[in-house]
């Protein structure tokens, strides 16, 4: 059972509007889910960390708390790590709750990076939680979660 009815209703109204505009089209409501859910995000995280415990801390996720345009959101992930041959960040994985796919990006670095920091720009389809997880060379996982409010969503369902 979906807990959120708003997107379905919105989609229904949009489809109904199109059908009315075109006139002769039969009204078909497709209920293909086009958003990831916290469950699919959890599954995507499990696929990366396996059964390991993910601890909170060490990771810093720099993303604007209020985003006007979800089509291009700057994001910086950094980890407090000495980045030596013995103690470094192996990879950084960023996940989201409500885009059609739960992944925002995977980044693989090594001790030669010198600084464990990655910047990129992402699309966000809705206001949601973003989680960044870092895999360290000792096999531990560290994470941080940030809330982002998006006023103009990325056009995942836009009709062009």
């Amino acid at each position, binding site marked *: 059972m979906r807990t959120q009815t708003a997107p379905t209703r919105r989609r229904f109204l949009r489809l109904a509007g199109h059908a009315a505009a075109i006139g002769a089209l039969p009204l078909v409501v497709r209920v293909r889910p086009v958003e990831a859910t916290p469950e699919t995000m959890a599954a995507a995280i499990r696929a990366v960390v396996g059964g390991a415990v993910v601890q909170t801390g060490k990771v810093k996720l720099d993303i604007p708390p209020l985003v006007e345009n979800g089509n291009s959101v700057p994001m910086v992930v950094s980890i407090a790590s000495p980045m030596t041959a013995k103690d470094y960040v192996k990879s950084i994985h960023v996940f989201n709750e409500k885009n059609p796919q739960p992944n925002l990006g995977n980044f693989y670095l090594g001790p*030669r*990076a010198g600084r464990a*920091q990655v910047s*990129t720009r992402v699309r966000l389809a809705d206001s949601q939680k973003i989680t960044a997880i870092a895999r360290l060379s000792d096999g531990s996982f560290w994470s941080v979660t940030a809330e982002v409010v998006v006023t103009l969503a990325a056009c995942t369902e836009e009709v*062009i």
Partner: protein
Amino acid sequence: MTTALINVPKKAKRGDVIEIKTLMSHIMETGYRHTTSGQIVPRDIITSFACRYNGEEIFRADLFPATAANPFISFFTVATESGKFDFEWIGDNGFSETAAASIIVE
């Protein structure tokens, strides 16, 4: 015409941590949009990015439809020796682009 923008310092001291900024022009079509007739616009994204420093891979990224158009990625590395950075982007529909930048380490 695809173009890549690369920003690597021309010179660095040995042991310096330097930032490398990259931008590749690409539509990054998500595959989740559809036309007025209901047709899904097929996915066309860059799926993978890699950077090699004198032949050795120092950074790699998996990209997703959630990466904004014209993917911008920046990361760091330690300047160890003079030489060349090779960048490679690979994506849907046979997309494959490379770029290079050189650095002098003193």
